């Protein structure tokens, strides 16, 4: 079980939230080439290390926030609403 600290609802079981995956900077839609756009959509670093990722508190406050999680150990640090 992974306990995720929601900034509003406090520590929650990860099953109450949705993991939206690692944070990828969104290119400017008016300037991005097709390749840049599709790399943003699909390509991921997927490291076995600390990763900054977005979560959605679907069972609680329904807000999005980012945390850092170590994907090798599931340790969590830092959180901010986004």
């Amino acid at each position, binding site marked *: 079980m992974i306990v995720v600290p929601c900034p509003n609802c406090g520590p929650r079981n990860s*099953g109450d939230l949705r993991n939206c*995956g690692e944070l990828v900077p969104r290119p400017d839609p008016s300037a991005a080439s*097709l390749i840049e756009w*599709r790399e943003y959509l699909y390509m991921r670093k*997927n490291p*076995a290390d600390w990763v900054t990722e977005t979560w959605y508190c679907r069972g609680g406050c329904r807000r999005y926030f980012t945390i850092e999680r170590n994907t*090798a150990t599931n340790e969590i640090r830092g959180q901010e609403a986004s």
Partner: protein
Amino acid sequence: MGKRPPKYSAGALVKHGLTRGDWPRMWRRPEMHDSYDVVVIGGGLHGLATAYYLAENHGITNVAVVDKGYIGGGGSGRNTAIVRSNYLTPEGVAFYDRSLDLYNTMATDLNLNIMFSRRGHLTLAHTDSALRTMHWRAEVNKLQGIDSSVIDPQEVKKQAPSLDVSPNTRYPIMGALYHPPGGIVRHDAVVWGYARGADHHGVHILQETEVLDINVEGGTGPGGKGAGGRVSGVKTSRGDINSPVVVNCTAGWASLISNMAGVPLPITTHPLQAAVTEPCKVFLPTVVVSGSLHVYVSQTDRGELVFGASVDPVGTYRVNGTLEFTEELAGHVLELMPGISKMRLLRQWSGLCDMTPDYSPVMGFTPVEGYLVDVGWGTYGFKAGPVAGETLAETIATGRTADLIAPFGIERFTEGDLVGEKGAAAVGH
């Protein structure tokens, strides 16, 4: 190289029993060379099959298979050993059906009993929309000559009498996609068979050899890696290897290896949990899958029930089991088969799945010359192992992407030409 090893046969068994002679090792522990024609990273089913077909079909025997652990220790030894070819897209059906053909003759080809049991495969439908997808799949399958049809609950009961097909359950069984050629295989034997076959041809199987970096020159990314570059070898925990061709067959760890070459992949790694019960008398004649209930079950020759589920929703490289999984699994299995409520679980485990956005693999050449991938195998890598090895070997040997894997190239993501297989691969295997 070396002499052809003694064949496994009933005669050899009697002879060894009487003389108490030692069985020869199935594969050697060779000294690592400085250079090879092809280096395959990952000593699982896919890597070993690729090496075997390179040697067997194309005469390329100066090949090394490197693995940081022991062969077959990843997904190849953790899957639930189900094979089938009733997929949803014509590309998927053609590909997986070739794999089934190879499994069919594998015991003879590799001279090793892989215990292939063609027992039939049921994918249950609990909703109208699931039933609609079953009809869709059945029609796609029939068009390509695959034995696959939709059957009603009474027929389901005949195929698997232990299932509760009454309409009064929480998730009533409304029908099923029946695929008689599907079945189960002993997965370890397949790994050992390919390892033994490849070793006989002179392929070096280098276990406990971890790849630390991939050497790429002339690329546009940092350190000369990435698109436009060319592979020159790999750096391992036992020294450097020069090689013009490096193949990534590392499944759940695929992104970590690919990042070493500067080639990003459309993959996230998720664990998939499975469990097995204590053995009991054989009562379940077919493989039973329920997509809506996130479970698939088959009974091994030892009488154990093997259960698998869908991947865990949170991507991680950590493979410990969870109580949530066990509870959900038990609830759903009892929904299907109330009669086994007194059975106890023997053990539970998980393996890493390299999930792609469209539930199809990523295979073939990449923007780095000489670096090939065979990744994105998600939850369907075992059933595809033989055909993946065969087509990848052809691609390496001829320098041209094999027809069967042409739809699965990495460029489909930049071209927006995905092969949506979720309807047939997400849970149903």
